[in-house]
């Protein structure tokens, strides 16, 4: 059922993405103080929201795995972590590209930037753990690490928040009201990115499921071979 729906969903997502791109580059009004560069916002912020959402799903799936030991929850955790890291990378790359022309610096130890960086580091280490451990305990270890990472997030946030208040920082224009049209464009892009992330996660999920099946078959085959020829 879903298999047949996939191309249709793909086309719909592509359409939504192109519409979002059009709105972001042409449809949205020009921001007064930052000019054209502000349009990075329409990719930067929705990517960040998507990444955070995926990491939340990862945490929930990890907890479900710890309680129920379901393989599906484990695969979901792996997939959301991977796609989340991809979106987080987008945030970390577009962030400095926006900061440079606007603030004159590539990077500042701003609370949101730094927390995102730390989050990225935590999830990269999560993926490294999954990659390096090949045994049957991998899902459990990964789920435990995901729980630790989630516990770390508020602590990271507070520590950087306080760190920032002690050290002089470049003034970053925040707050203020946002043009409703701008918000609308950002939300359209967010919807498009969510559909895209959903599709990618889904294909990655199917792939991982298939991969595990193949590995099982292979192991069985090897077992039969060694049993058949003493």
């Amino acid at each position: 059922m879903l298999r047949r729906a996939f191309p249709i969903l793909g086309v719909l997502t592509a359409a939504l993405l192109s519409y979002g791109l059009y709105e972001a580059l042409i449809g949205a009004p020009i921001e007064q103080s930052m000019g054209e560069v502000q349009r990075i916002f329409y990719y930067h912020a929705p990517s960040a929201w998507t990444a955070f959402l995926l990491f939340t799903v990862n945490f929930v799936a990890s907890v479900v795995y710890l309680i129920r030991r379901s393989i599906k929850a484990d695969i979901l955790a792996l997939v959301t972590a991977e796609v989340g890291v991809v979106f987080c990378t987008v945030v970390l790359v577009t962030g400095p590209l926006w900061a440079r022309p606007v603030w004159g610096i590539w990077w500042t130890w701003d609370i949101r930037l730094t927390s995102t960086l730390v989050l990225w580091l935590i999830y990269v280490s999560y993926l490294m753990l999954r990659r390096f451990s090949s045994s049957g305990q991998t899902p459990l270890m990964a789920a435990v690490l995901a729980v630790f990472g989630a516990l770390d997030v508020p602590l990271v946030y507070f520590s950087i928040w306080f760190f920032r208040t002690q050290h002089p920082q470049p003034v970053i224009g925040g707050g203020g009201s946002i043009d409703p049209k701008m918000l609308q464009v950002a939300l359209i892009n967010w919807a498009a990115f969510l559909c895209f992330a959903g599709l990618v996660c889904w294909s990655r999920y199917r792939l991982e499921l298939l991969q595990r099946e193949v590995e099982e078959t292979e192991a069985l085959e090897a077992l039969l071979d060694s049993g058949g020829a003493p």
Partner: protein
Amino acid sequence: MKFLYAAYTATWIIHISYLAFVLRRYIRLRNKIQELNQK
């Protein structure tokens, strides 16, 4: 303007490289399945 295009291009380069990574794993897996079927 330069930065704007750079950011949009970078975003899609990152996404497409991830998709390529997934696709490569898929192809490798398909080859493996064929191999197993031949046995």
